[in-house]
């Protein structure tokens, strides 16, 4: 009798342990992702100078990456991660379902030609990866719609001065742009569902999030 009791107790504990492990592994896959915001409704310009309506991405999962091409250190890392992601997406057979978008937060310097050459540095495959710019007003719609932090820092006599503290004209003065360093993962309905890191992202983790959004 006692032996039977111990056996069923052991089976019960084993069952609970397996159930717990399954929950830990599967819960992230079945829990719905939050909705942060909607993809801004704006028509931008791609690296070939052609209009690109963000609404045309409906039906696809979008990976959105804010950058500027004069960025010496962070944006190249983020864009290199996007290139790795593009390869992983292709290997996963998702290239036709996932659209990569890199857009500039510095439209005054980043015109289509500059973006095209920037894309060339990273050997970006234009099949599912576009580089977008726009007028300052259009880019402001993106910045506000995505709640991005973007602030120019001018270098005057090697001293960084935020644009909010400038007291004299800035024409021709070199500037960097402090900006949010995250990616925006957008579902097929145009809603932002995940905000993984940008330059510090783990591309395998980002791919898992993309797979989850693709399945939804």
């Amino acid at each position: 009798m006692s032996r039977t009791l111990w056996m069923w107790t052991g089976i019960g504990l084993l069952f609970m342990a397996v159930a717990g492990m399954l929950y830990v592994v599967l819960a992230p896959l079945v829990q719905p992702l939050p909705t942060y915001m909607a993809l801004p409704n704006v028509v931008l310009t791609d690296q070939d100078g052609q209009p690109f309506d963000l609404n045309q991405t409906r039906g696809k999962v979008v990976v959105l990456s804010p950058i500027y091409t004069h960025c010496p250190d962070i944006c190249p890392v983020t864009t290199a991660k996007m290139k790795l992601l593009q390869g992983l997406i292709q290997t996963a057979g998702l290239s036709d379902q996932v659209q990569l978008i890199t857009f500039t937060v510095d439209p005054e310097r980043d015109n289509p030609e500059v973006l095209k050459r920037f894309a060339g540095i990273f050997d970006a495959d234009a099949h599912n990866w576009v580089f977008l710019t726009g007028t300052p007003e259009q880019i402001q719609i993106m910045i506000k719609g995505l709640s991005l932090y973007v602030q120019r820092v001018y270098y005057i006599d090697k001293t960084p001065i935020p644009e909010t503290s400038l007291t004299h004209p800035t024409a021709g003065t070199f500037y960097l742009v402090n900006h949010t360093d995250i990616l925006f993962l957008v579902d097929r309905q145009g809603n932002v569902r995940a905000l993984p890191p940008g330059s510090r992202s783990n591309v395998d983790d980002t791919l898992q999030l993309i797979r989850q959004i693709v399945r939804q």
Partner: protein
Amino acid sequence: MKRLLFSFLVILITLTACATPVPTGPQIHVENVWARPTIGSSMGAGSPTQVMQGMPGMSGNADSGMASAAYFVIVNNGSEADTLIGASTDVAKGIEMHETRINNNVAEMVPVTRLDIPAGGRIEFNPEGYHVMLTGLTRDLKVGDTIKLTLQFQKSGAIALDVPIRMDK
């Protein structure tokens, strides 16, 4: 007995003095040098002005060229610290040492005017950390190219480097 003890102490002190390393000063060695590919000021055919014609606000002023960053590891095998106080190159109009910092998901660059390399220590310039920023590039920096970069140290003086252009590993 006292004489024997005194002799032992004299020998011990002498040996200790001999074992103390003679100061060699800083011994700076720079390794793992590389810089990012980027676009210089020469825009060539298909100028941005043509592409952006009729689109107000997008001037496409790329005359200054994009920015690049150089990375390396400074090793000091000497017995004294040294200080990196500047850098120069002939391919950029501007050159500054920076440190990237990311706080609350916002990336920013913080200028670094001097950086101590302790005796027996090392300082790494890596992506998302310390880097030498190159601005106003006078030509494209293409993968496979090599540029000249000179680091200026307070005690060791100038150290000239050949910097290969490549993507991140």
